[in-house]
């Protein structure tokens, strides 16, 4: 350092700055962001362990091995399916300005400002079409592949709880391939791809073949995947549980539900804690960057998300526990603090905050999580007592119910500054739309409501016929004898003793 002239002129300083930025930006910051995202992916992967324990504890012991096997195969089949087509359908977009590579200076500017990206077709708004089996996928995008794989596997595994104790193993494998290869990636493409028709990440270049830039003027604000992950999983659970029918003995002759508690609450709650832990990858990781050159303290996005996640879960747990206690007190007159309900409440709070976590203030996260607990409780009662759907793990109420609420909450509570931190400004430099409670207009609510509708429509339209078909050919449900005896004895060797 001593050898160089120590004092710089202003102009020299600017140039040095540019050199530093180029150097730090392309190597170090990119690497650090990749590290952050991949690490988050590990935590999301760990949610598989959480689901496995949650499910294992929540079923009767005679079916525990079966459901754990479903959970481990979720990760395995999910990986293959994501490799073959999942990533391609979800993120197989032409890279903007890829075709400008090699150009410099004015030629580059002209190229970037010019026509839409070559290779962009109108169908790109609906589905991606390249990188099947990772072919031609640049290695610098592998971090995205990995991170998004963990999301796909998580979304798929939700259903295992809803079909527990009666679904055939073979049917579940087919379902898994179906959802990770096609159903989930398409929804993820809509919401998160730079080309997706509901995405707020579109630009003038990627939206060139459409008549609008952002749907409803804003696009869907779904930070970590209430629509793409939780609602897809929850709605598929609804279709599956409805087609499959209730477990034997779940409803008595009069149609009233009979309790069928799981065999091991310790495992269930271990699962809840592991899921909560993994959620710190799921939500903050969805920022996919921790540092941006030219933006000071970009890490504040991920950090606010981590706090909102915590607060949402805490509020959800407490609300649910007290609601359940009050309900029981008023119906039965006893005060019972139900552990399993509290655990589901934590998950309900987490799901509720998943969509809006990047856009809301901490106080709003309290409200969202708390109402999420209420939504879960009501949805669960409606499911069981009105719709008569048997969902051993309450997956529908937690993931679909709170997923809907999370999207609506995003339309209500999104705060202007935080939206800008995540998505930047509108192309004309103005503020992005934000939540109507925060003084914004209704466009976010409109876009998010649209997301709810299309996810319901799309998932039900594909999964219901699929499950009905499975049922018709006799592949879906085990025989009553096997069900009564438990799936472990006949299908998976001996008992899981505990």
């Amino acid at each position, binding site marked *: 350092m001593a050898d160089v002239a*120590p*004092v*710089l002129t*202003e102009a020299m*300083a*600017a140039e040095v*700055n540019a050199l*530093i*930025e180029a150097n*730090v930006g392309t190597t*170090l910051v990119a690497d*650090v962001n990749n590290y*952050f995202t991949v690490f988050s992916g590990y935590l999301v992967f760990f949610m598989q362990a959480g689901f496995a324990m949650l499910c294992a504890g929540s079923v*009767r*012991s005679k079916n525990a091995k079966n459901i754990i096997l479903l959970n481990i195969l979720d990760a395995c089949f999910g990986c293959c399916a994501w490799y073959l087509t999942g990533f391609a359908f979800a993120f197989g977009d032409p890279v903007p300005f890829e075709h400008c590579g090699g150009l410099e200076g004015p030629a580059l500017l002209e190229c970037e400002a010019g026509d839409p990206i070559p290779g962009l077709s109108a169908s790109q708004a609906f589905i991606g079409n390249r990188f099947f089996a990772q072919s031609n996928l640049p290695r610098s995008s592998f971090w995205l592949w990995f991170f998004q794989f963990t999301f796909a596997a998580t979304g798929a595994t939700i259903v295992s709880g809803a079909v527990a104790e009666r679904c055939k193993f073979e049917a579940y494998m087919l379902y898994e391939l179906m959802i990770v290869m096609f159903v989930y990636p398409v929804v993820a493409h809509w919401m998160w791809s730079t080309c997706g028709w509901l995405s707020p990440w579109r630009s003038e270049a990627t939206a060139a073949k459409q008549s609008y830039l952002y749907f409803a003027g804003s696009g869907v604000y779904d930070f970590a995947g209430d629509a793409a992950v939780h609602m897809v999983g929850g709605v598929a659970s609804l279709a599956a549980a409805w087609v499959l029918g209730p477990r034997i003995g779940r409803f008595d002759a009069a149609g009233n*539900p009979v*309790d069928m*508690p799981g*065999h*091991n*609450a*310790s495992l269930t*709650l*271990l699962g809840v804690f*592991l899921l909560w*832990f993994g959620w*710190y990858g799921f939500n*903050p990781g969805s920022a996919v960057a*921790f*540092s941006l050159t030219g933006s*000071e*303290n*970009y*890490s*504040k996005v*991920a*950090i606010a998300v*981590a*706090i909102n996640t*915590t*607060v949402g879960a*805490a*509020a959800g*747990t*407490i609300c649910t*526990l007290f609601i359940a206690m009050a309900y*029981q007190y008023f119906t039965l007159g006893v*005060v*019972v*603090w*139900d*552990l399993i*309900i*509290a655990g589901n409440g*934590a998950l309900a709070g987490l799901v509720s905050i998943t969509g809006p976590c990047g856009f809301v203030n*901490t*106080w709003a996260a*309290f409200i969202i999580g708390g109402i999420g607990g209420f939504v879960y409780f009501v949805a669960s009662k409606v499911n069981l007592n009105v719709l008569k759907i048997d969902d051993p793990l309450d997956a529908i109420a937690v993931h679909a119910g709170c997923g809907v609420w999370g999207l609506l909450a995003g339309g209500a509570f999104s705060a202007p500054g935080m939206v800008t931190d995540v998505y930047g400004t509108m192309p004309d430099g103005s503020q992005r739309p934000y939540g109507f409670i925060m003084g914004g207009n209704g466009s976010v609510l409109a876009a998010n409501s649209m997301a709810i509708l299309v996810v319901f429509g799309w998932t039900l339209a594909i999964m219901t016929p699929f499950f009905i078909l499975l049922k018709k050919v006799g592949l879906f449900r085990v025989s009553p004898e096997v069900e009564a005896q438990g799936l472990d004895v006949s299908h998976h060797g001996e008992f899981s*003793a*505990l």
Partner: protein
Amino acid sequence: MAEESVPLTFEDQFAEAFAPATADINATYVIISGVFVFLMQAGFCMLTAGSVRARNARGIILKNLMDTCVAALVYFLLGWGLAGLLIGDGNSFIGTSQFALGGLDPTMLYNWFFQFCFAAAACTIVSGALAERATFVSYILYSVLIIGFVYPVVTHWVWSPSGWASAFRSEQADGTFRSLLFGCGAYDFAGSGAVHMVGGVAAFAGAALLGPRMGRFDANGKPVPIPGHNVALAVLGTFILWFGWYGFNPGSTLMVMNGTSAIVARVCVTTTLGGAAGGIMTLFTHVLIQYKTTGKVVWDVMVAANGALAGLVAITAPCATVEPWAAIIIGMCGAWVYLGGSYLNSHILKIDDPVDAIAVHGWAGIWGVLANGLFATEGFVAQTYGTMPGTEDGVRLYGGFYGGGGKLFAAQLVYVLAIIGWVGGLMGMFFFALKMAGLFRVSAEVEAEGCDTSHYGGSVYHGLTPETGAGATAPASKGVFPSKGDAA
């Protein structure tokens, strides 16, 4: 930027150019460390669930889940403000601003998350000591009090720039320096005192006032072992705790850049050595004692697990300021302190502590804080706490074994006594009030039957007959594996 400070040097340029990335990386580091500390909630939950009898497991798991949630809300509303960890101009006893995070710079929010995880850890230590007999309501009230008031005040003392025991006391607004306690302040790097002792002392107050479980002491007052129902869960909890400790101790550097990664790596090493030495020494000492008294050699896994935790607690305060070999000694002595504390509790004071939380967190925590007064080296103290403000040579006091004199030990001792007085006094009064109000303990019938059936919606295990071993630890009365009574 440039126009303010022309002419610039290259150094300025580098500092300026790297500052945003460095700040962001430090923030990720703290957040991910906090996530590890969060997982310690799962560890405590599994440890206590496995360490109690099956008929009370469900309730204790619920308490562990709820204290996490209560901690988030209460620490948000009150705790962070009272802790005042980032405020240099607060008073030396308690923080007075930033309630509900109002006025906190958004870029500093990561500190809240990290500290929340610590608060939850301090709170949850007590759940095990009160297990199997405290009511749910009393536990929730206790959580609110400790997170909302008792714990944050202690952290203010030792970690805030204005706390009376803090080594971080800094320049005041008028340019004068605050005097440090005994000229050094207390060194409690990751919280043997502020976290573990707080939990341990509160556990002591609670367990003493709550009284032992039925059948814990026989007619002659001799302790009767009441082993937990599931060792696998308990040791799973221990491993998760140890894993989480890698967020707890190394994360407490609060940064990893600008050369601090060397401190981080050193803290990893000392943490590992402390835990390992604690586990081994506890197991062997226990075997030796048992061999001398009963003539049998029994290798008890729960003793080893608690020993490892005691070693980890002991190394928590000195982890950044001692040599690796000293970490081994601190861990080993932590093992003996734990065993002595456990014996004192159960045989002399007749206090019933189902998971030995008092001995592990309280006693080993005291030892950890004091050990810093002996083993802290000059170089590491300087590296960790920086130069001494307001002095010419900038040397901070270091451990007595290195010739640093007794002042540091005195400061550590005063700090320990202050925590005991503060936490013991407040929590003692609180638990006494709960007891007087009849809110503290479940009825004798409920306790005999196990709390889960009547209070927590059924047994933790459903539809299982007790396996061979269950009979040895828990009588297979109708309370252990009942069918679930009423609808959820």
